[in-house]
Structures are given as C-alpha cells and as structure tokens.
C-alpha cells in the first residue's frame, strides 16, 4: 500500500480527490483506534496521508479578537501561543498528557468527534467554525453542524479540515471541570464549561456546555438566554426552570468509566455551582 506525504495543501487535496485515504495528523487517536498486537502495524484499511509536515496548516493567529488555528497546530503550540484564551489553555492543560499534547492536533480532536472530546465544550461555547477544503470548494461549517454524532462528522472523503476559527467572547467568569479517573490521561466521565460576561452587576452573556453526557456536546442558546434573564431578575423560580431544562437534555449512559446517574447528578451540581458563582461574584 502506498502512503502519501504531501508537502503542500494543493498536493494534499489532489490526493484526496483521486483516492480514498485516511488523513493522519498527530496520530494519537488513530494509532490506538486501529491498533493490532505488538509488533504489527495498525490495521488501516486504506493508505495514509501524513499531514504533520504541511507547514501551511501549522499557523495560529489572532486578529480583530478572532482566533484562527491551523489544522496542523499541535495542542502544545496552542498552549504556548500567547493569545490563547486562559479558559481554553486551562482545558488543554488537563487534556491527555504532555507526551500526547506534543503531537496531537486540535483538528484531530474535532475529527475524532468523541462525545468526550476535551476541546469540544469550549469550541461549542465559542461557536467555532470549521474550515474544510477540497479540490472543488472551501466551506465553513459551524461545529454544531460539523459533528453529527459519536465518531461522525460531515467531512467527505475528498475533504480536509484546514482551519478552526472563533471569536473570543468577553469572559469575566468561568468554570471548567473535568471529572476523570486520574489527573492525566483520563477520558472524561463528564465535563462542564460555563462562561459569563458580567458587567456592572448584570450578566450580559452566559454560555454553558456539557461534555460526555450526550452523543454530542450539549449547548442550548435558548436556555442560556432564559437563564441570563432569570439571574438578572433574581428569580430563583426561573433559574430552577432553566436548570430543569438542562436536566432533560442531559442523556448520559452507563459505561466502563462511569454510571449515568453519577454523570447526571454531577453535571447538575456543577451547573448549580457555576450559577452560584456568577450570582455572587
């Protein structure tokens, strides 16, 4: 089987147009997903296209309060980049391990589309857009449309993610919590991200995302609006209604990592804690 090592994006999309290949960036997910016994290469059913030397994909930049992250940028580079939002950096530092972050890419975490993907709650919260290119066109797809279910995205066989971009919202308060079996190298049992922009005692913006408790990240801007208004009106009744609405969206499962009931209760507890934090602070 011939594997490919394109040196430019144009070369890469030309290959994708001609042949069914598997795109491999850092490889930190794929090498496990397709692993075989020791001493035997992973069982990829088609040729690989190695993208880790495509320099065009490695840039990270900030301009007009928007961040652009090349598909080949590693998590290490994102952590070290001066403009990475503090909340995002904190999430990345809890992800996997140094050894994995040195090779893994943000694009890979998105393309893997795991319900437990560590970067996904943040990307949903900031309405990240995934730029996808092929020989025919360039598309920009909001992340909530890009990921369709566990392990599934709308990426076609002749397409490649080139960039991830988002506007950096103003954040005065945030809470991120990942519940896992150990501090490092843990696939999350559940995760919670809440961000808020509070100014002169008024919540102007609130964003809430839950990970690992549904097939895809839970984020609902209607409930966010109601919750924001409820907090500003100091209405405990309406706050509780919003919490209950989230409770109906949370659909965790029992699996080898955790039980559904724990995931549900913990998620609601974290939501309550975040609301208390922004009410008081």
């Amino acid at each position: 089987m011939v594997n490919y090592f394109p040196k430019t994006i144009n070369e890469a999309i030309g290959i994708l147009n001609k042949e069914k290949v598997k795109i491999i960036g850092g490889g930190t997910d794929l090498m496990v997903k397709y692993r075989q016994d020791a001493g035997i290469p992973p069982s990829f059913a088609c040729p690989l296209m190695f993208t880790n030397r495509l320099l065009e994909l490695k840039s990270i930049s900030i301009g007009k309060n928007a961040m652009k992250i090349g598909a080949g940028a590693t998590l290490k580079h994102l952590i070290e980049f001066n403009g990475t939002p503090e909340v995002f950096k904190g999430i990345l530092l809890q992800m996997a391990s140094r050894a994995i972050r040195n090779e893994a890419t943000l694009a890979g975490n998105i393309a893997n589309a795991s319900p437990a993907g560590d970067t996904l709650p943040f990307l949903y919260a900031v309405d990240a857009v995934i730029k996808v290119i092929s020989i025919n066109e360039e598309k920009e797809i909001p992340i909530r449309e890009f990921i369709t279910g566990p392990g599934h995205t709308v990426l076609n066989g002749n397409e490649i993610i080139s960039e991830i971009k988002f506007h950096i919202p103003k954040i005065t308060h945030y809470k991120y919590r990942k519940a896992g079996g150990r501090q490092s190298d843990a696939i999350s049992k559940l995760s919670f991200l809440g961000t808020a922009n509070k100014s002169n005692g008024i919540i102007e913006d609130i964003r809430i995302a839950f990970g690992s408790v549904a097939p895809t990240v839970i984020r609902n801007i209607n409930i966010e609006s109601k919750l924001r208004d409820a907090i500003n009106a100091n209405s405990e009744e309406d706050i509780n209604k919003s919490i209950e609405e989230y409770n109906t969206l949370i659909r965790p499962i029992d699996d080898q990592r955790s039980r559904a009931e724990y995931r549900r209760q913990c998620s609601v507890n974290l939501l309550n804690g975040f609301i208390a934090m922004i009410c008081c602070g």
Partner: protein
Amino acid sequence: MDTVEFTLNGKEITIRIDASTRLLDCLRDNFNLKGVKEGCGEGECGACAVLIDGCIVNSCLVPAGNVNGRKVVTIEGFRETKRYRVLEESFAEAGAVQCGFCTPGMIMAAESLLNGNPEPDEREIREAISGNLCRCTGYNMIVEAVRTAAAKGKDLW
C-alpha cells in the same frame, strides 16, 4: 513500504518501513532498542516515551511516517549525556528505581521537564511525570530524584 529519514540517537537514518508502523515497534524491532517499553500501547502509561525534537512523546502513538526529518532520542541515546548521569545518580540516591520498567520513560519525562524548566517546584515535577505510571514507588521517590537532579545539575539544564 515507505522511506523514512530521521535522526536516531544522533545518527542519520534512512529506513524502508511501512510508515504506519508504531515508532515503538520500529525502535524495538528494527533497531533493537529495548529500553523503550510497551506498557499499555495506548498512550496512558508512558513506558514507551522517547524524545522527539527534545519533547516527550509516547512512541506507541507515533506512526513511523511522522518522524521524517525529526530527531528521535531514546534512553539508549540519552544515556551517553552528562544530564543522564546526574539523573541516574539522583534516581539511585532517592531509591526511585524498583522494578525499573517505568524508569526509561520517567527519565525521558524528567529530561523533557528540565530542558524547559531547570528549577521546577514539586507541583511542576508531578505534572511533568503525570503521563507516566509507576506501580512500585508511589512516585514520591521519583519526585525527589528529579528535584535532586535539578539541584545537582544546575549548569546542565
């Protein structure tokens, strides 16, 4: 079969290999470098850790095709350096080696840490080795060893 060109423990290497081969297997089987261990094969234990371009990486997760043009250092290569000798002495003093299986990976993690942060505090040491599992020592002795090495090797890192 693909051609992969990289630097391995200071030597320029060209090898014909399926580029999807795990770097771990390439190092152990093609180059007989047994200091790189397979503990889990899933990137969770760190026993397979090597340095790529000075940074710690789990070799069980790296396809050989991804080391093209890069510098790979295993424990066998690092062993020849002054930094290693300080770490070796410190690990021995602290009783940080029992069965020894995690030790090559722990040494790689220590080097990766000290290379970027020559005076880490305890929290930073623990974070740096958090991707490496040890069943024997309970970690405290390893943390002490890295702290001692940092103090002894002030001019090296």
